[in-house]
């Protein structure tokens, strides 16, 4: 482990990818700490970055109202990039997670409306991986998978969705629709 004094970074030459990842995390943390000029910072989210993110997001929603989907998607992406960059690693995780999930949920709808099914699918995967198991995530995910012709995956998604929410009408109709597509897919 050696410390590069002018770039103020740690490095471990020739280490495994896990160690490399930990080193990057430490470097990121120290860089942000060094860059932080307010001495008594708190884990509460930085309010000016919050307002910036909010403004960008609002403009996205405005575009949405004006039916300008592409711009809406772009400004939501900007808002997310802003959150990714501006937020310091010590700002409350719960807040950052919620914020990111909220923005992604909107981004998913925008992607699906514009036919970017793979983008929507990966965002939905991310939401599921970070613990969001609500029925509408399953509905959107099943729909996206069907549009991508992955009927087997769609079936396991919709069945899981129904296991968690057996009475959901939308999921039921998707399940029937997907079974029909599957039968056709299998000749």
């Amino acid at each position: 482990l050696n410390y590069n004094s002018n770039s103020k970074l740690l490095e471990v030459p020739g280490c495994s990818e896990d160690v490399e990842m930990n080193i990057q995390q430490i470097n990121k943390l120290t860089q942000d700490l060094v860059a932080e000029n307010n001495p008594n910072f708190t884990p509460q989210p930085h309010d000016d970055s919050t307002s910036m993110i909010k403004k960008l997001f609002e403009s996205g929603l405005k575009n949405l109202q004006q039916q300008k989907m592409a711009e809406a998607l772009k400004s939501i992406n900007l808002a997310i990039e802003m959150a990714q960059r501006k937020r310091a690693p010590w700002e409350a995780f719960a807040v950052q997670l919620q914020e990111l999930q909220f923005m992604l949920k909107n981004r998913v709808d925008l992607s699906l409306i514009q036919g970017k099914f793979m983008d929507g699918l990966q965002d939905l995967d991310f939401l599921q991986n970070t613990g969001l198991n609500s029925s509408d995530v399953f509905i959107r995910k099943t729909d996206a998978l069907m549009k991508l012709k992955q009927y087997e995956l769609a079936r396991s998604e919709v069945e899981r969705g129904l296991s968690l929410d057996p009475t959901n009408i939308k999921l039921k109709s998707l399940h029937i629709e997907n079974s029909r597509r599957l039968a056709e897919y299998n000749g």
Partner: protein
Amino acid sequence: QSYDYDEGSETWPFFMLAVLCVILVPLTIMQLWEALAGGEKDRSSQHQQHVLGDLSERYTGNDVRTFRAKYAAKKSKWLAKRNLVIIAGWTIVAYLVQHIGSNDAIKDAATLLFDPYALLDISASSTDREIRSAYRKLSIKFHPDKLAKDLKPEERSVLEEQYVMITKAYKALTDEITRENYLKYGHPDGPQATSHGIALPKFLVDSSASLVMIVGYIALLGFILPFFVSRWWSKTQSMTKKGIHVKSASYFSDRLFNFKPSQVVTTQLMIRWISHSEEFKLMFPALAPNIFETLLHDHINRKHSGNLQTTKFRIVAKSHILLFGLLDIATTFRNLEISNAAIDTLKALVQAIPLSPYSQILQLPNVDAKRFVEGSVDDIRTLGKLFTYDDAKIGKILGIEDATQLQETLTVASNIPYLKLIRAEFKVPGESVITPLSTPHISLKVLVRSAKHKFFSPNMIPDEMCQDEQDFDSLRDPFASVSEQPKLPQSFAPYFPAKRSGCWCALVVLQKDGKVIQTPMLIDRLSFANLSQDFDKRTVKDLDKDFNPENWAVGTIKIPFSQPAPEEKGDYFFRVIIKSTEYFGPDLDFTVSMAVRE
């Protein structure tokens, strides 16, 4: 202190004889059994004969054939070695028997043995009357007063001696006390002088040879024994119960433990992991993991690896057991994504086809991949879809000109075993519902069907065909009925270096958190009888007329449930994934609900 060793060498031959017989008799029986029954054991074993096996042999390339031949040869040599031991053993036995026979010291020792029946030369099971009459006859003959006068004194003494023995024998059989003695000590006069000694031949213990003995002992105890014990110990220590090397298992566990959700699981990743296995390092110390990785990818893309061809075959054959080990560890870490990827990687290695939407089609023989992918008019990704066209059209789609080749391809395609789920439920033997904290198992009724068969809904199979016999032993051990089904036949895998019959892996996933809850259960017994049915989807028009459930064999799969049913009542949903390790396509993935009731 002074042990008397076996002077006349009369005991150690028996000891040696006994030891040799203990080793030789079972070995010889086994050898004979192998030699006689061995052949038909391969032929008539439970493996059901199936057309795919023969076709697989036909399509096996030469380099795979030579590789198999070399590998198989090893076995027969080992057989010869065992024969050698047997022949040597029996010659020693023969020599010992001859030695015992010729050794008079043993003979007179044998006479020491008192056997009243022999003396009275009657059978051991004769009655008292016979004993008495025999005794009377003999005593008249041998009684001293009756002896002829002109006998020489020593003859006379022998005869008298004889007479005494006869009397003793008679007494041993009739008189209580002497019989008591005889039964207890083997001699009517009570306990004889028995000599205790060490059954070691004389030449071994006298001074000159004793040095050799000491050295022998030191060698045995000091080197030979420790050598074998350490070799055995290191071998057992180094293998896990799943048959993979401990270091490989710890590498896989480390990969799984440090697995990051940001990593994407692909077959490439699985191949990279098994390329770091200890087995490959032991087999080819000179090669680095990335070479193994390249070789495995060559195999999947059916690329020739030049002079590393044999190396490639050996690591591909070995990768089978490694992937099962990885699958086992992945299920222990409850990671469904990696478990699925491990099985998909195994399919890719078995069929030498990369994972792609068209794998089901490309795994068929004689398919012209390029023409198929470009040419296919509407997206054909499954064999089922392929069979909606007529044969000629299929030939065009797959790019197969030659009619016989097309015929063979269609035979393979229609004999790849697809599973169709008929019934799925949780069952507790002897109960009608799943009671809390009971030990349920998942009972599946499946139909092995061909991709060309017309599809029919599961409830066209009547319930009575899906009942398990409710007799006692099936309640006691519900899994017994499964083992009555025939073993899977040899799979169609002409590119795989070794012959294989494959299996299905059953994974059970909790729907709540999407994680695997138990280690995979391997299904290697199912009847493929249905595959011989024609029931072609292109010819069968209306089901009710042509469909007759009796013609279909319903297969049973029982998956033991690793934990007791939950305490509180309610509905619990589990996802069951049954993936074939051989072919792309015949996988099942469905949800079963467990209704826990009082």
